[in-house]
């Protein structure tokens, strides 16, 4: 039977929140095609998450709880997805294009010689069954419109936060079917040794608010202790920790950085936003001491509201920003933290 499949990503027994965005987009397509919406829920705690998928709109759920699928590995996941696609010929397979979502869809599309479009920011299904999708290319400097021949299964990976997540409805009770894994452990070439969630990670792409620092972070008025070799690096690192981080905490935001700040050693590469870092599109992006080079803009220009704080009124970031503050970030950011604490009661 034809259907729209949506892969729900699980990390340590919990659904990754952006997955529901794919279920929302899948609902629209399934209604248009008049086919059931099927969630694919595999891995740790899959049974409980299957019930949740029903509340987010799935009609049916294909559940697989098996030791080989407990933590995501491409080989067993792709083998199972390719097998289900071959067996049931769904019209569309959707997922949010996290790192795992993209590689899973790409792998299963390759295994079944199916069409694949990734990083979709908008899409529409025509009456003749053609999918027409928009996606950024050239690091967001240009938008491409891509069509997929919809006669056979089409794989679609959505950009995170580009499609709204549906409101859960407690009345949703999906039909749940168990499926068996395709690969045995002995067929799988990769083994996970450790996973360190604490080490310097930033879920930049999922964050609703991102606060980024740039070269201007080195203008910290704090005096480095004696013996510090590079005063600018110390000042900037101190600023990220003691000026940007408190604001991020009040706003429950992720901390980003420009390439200049990362290259200068002010903060780790995991925080880099831009063409050679991460592309983000949060509701609110606050750029502190960032001039706004074109390669930085490529990674954040789709943010809903952009605030720029910079001492240089001619900085290009002000051309992109919705709200601009010309001033010393080391005065403005603490004032903003204090004002927000008062307003938000945090």
């Amino acid at each position, binding site marked *: 039977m034809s259907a729209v499949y949506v892969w729900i990503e699980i990390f340590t027994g919990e659904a990754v929140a952006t997955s529901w965005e794919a279920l929302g987009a899948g609902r629209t397509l399934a209604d248009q095609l008049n086919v059931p919406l099927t969630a694919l829920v595999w891995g740790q705690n899959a049974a409980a998450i299957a019930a949740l998928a029903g509340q987010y709109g799935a009609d049916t759920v294909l559940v697989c709880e098996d030791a080989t699928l407990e933590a995501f590995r491409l080989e067993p996941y792709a083998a199972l997805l390719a097998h289900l696609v071959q067996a049931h010929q769904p019209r569309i397979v959707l997922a949010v294009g996290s790192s795992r979502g993209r590689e899973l869809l790409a792998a299963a599309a390759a295994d079944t010689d199916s069409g694949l479009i990734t990083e979709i920011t908008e899409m529409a299904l025509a009456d003749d069954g053609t999918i027409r999708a928009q996606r950024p290319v050239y690091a967001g400097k240009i938008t491409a419109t891509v069509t997929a021949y919809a006669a056979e299964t089409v794989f679609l990976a959505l950009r995170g936060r580009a499609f709204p997540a549906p409101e859960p409805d407690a009345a949703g009770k999906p039909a749940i079917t168990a499926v068996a894994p395709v690969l045995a452990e002995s067929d799988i070439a990769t083994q996970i040794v450790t996973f360190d969630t604490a080490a310097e990670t930033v879920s930049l792409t999922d964050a609703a608010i991102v606060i980024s620092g740039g070269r201007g972070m080195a203008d910290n008025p704090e005096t480095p202790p004696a013996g510090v070799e590079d005063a600018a690096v110390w000042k900037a690192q101190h600023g990220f920790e003691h000026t940007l981080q408190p604001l991020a905490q009040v706003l429950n935001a992720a901390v980003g950085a420009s390439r200049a700040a990362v290259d200068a050693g002010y903060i780790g590469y995991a925080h880099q936003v831009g063409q050679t870092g991460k592309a983000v599109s949060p509701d609110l992006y606050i750029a502190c001491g960032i001039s706004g080079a074109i390669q930085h803009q490529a990674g954040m220009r789709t943010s809903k509201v952009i605030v720029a704080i910079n001492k240089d009124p001619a900085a290009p970031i002000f051309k992109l920003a919705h709200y601009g503050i010309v001033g010393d970030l080391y005065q*403005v950011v603490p004032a903003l933290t*204090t004002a927000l604490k008062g307003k938000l009661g945090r």
Partner: protein
Amino acid sequence: LHIITFTRSTPDTEARVEVGPDGAVTWGNAATIVNPWDEYAIEEAILQAEKASGSTSVIAIGPDMHEEALKHCLAMGVQQALRIWDPELENADSLGYATAAAAAVNKLDAADLVIFGRESIDIGTDQHIYQTARKLGWPMLSYVARILAIDTEARTIQVERLLEQGRQVVTSKLPVVISVMKDINEPRYPSFIGIRKASRASIPVWSLADLGISLPPVRTQVVSYSNPPARTADVEMLSGTPEEQAAQLVERLLEEKVL
């Protein structure tokens, strides 16, 4: 140990890329460079091959303009370069790319490791990387931040991957396809002698017939390009003391409902 990397020429990262009146993508007189992510893949291939007294090859799939990227790789120290091109690849999607890439890897001397940069900035995707691994039938380790060990006797590799939620250490059997991140190494500049040698190199071009393959049907098509919508409203500048600026900003952000 034979390591193969892939590369392509892309417009300079600082270039203003836009859609011209004819609907084609243009970057004016700006130079093309090696896809920025690929430099890390090339450097890692050279480093790992040096460590194991192995060899390195680089492949580009595309028309003439990609020869420049291949020459840059040779100048950095990659030993062998190869370009794949065929009119039939003109409208190929990632499935076609992956099919050709896998065939090229299989036709070169047996490789233990294929290294890609994280993504291609021009086409804005990494999907062809994972599809190449599947067409080869090899395991895939994406987002590698560090190669911890390669054991050519036991035929295994151990790497650290940087994922959304943290750092994962994972082992795989060889051969394997990996994609590497920016912080894995510091790419070298080509030496003067390297550049001179590379400029004289003649890089073979193989067609699909040379690879002995035909491509799967094209499933997706780019129908048009457009410039992203220009910002319509001007920036609202907030003035006053830092406290006044902060207070105005909080008001605006509450009105925008983004807090």
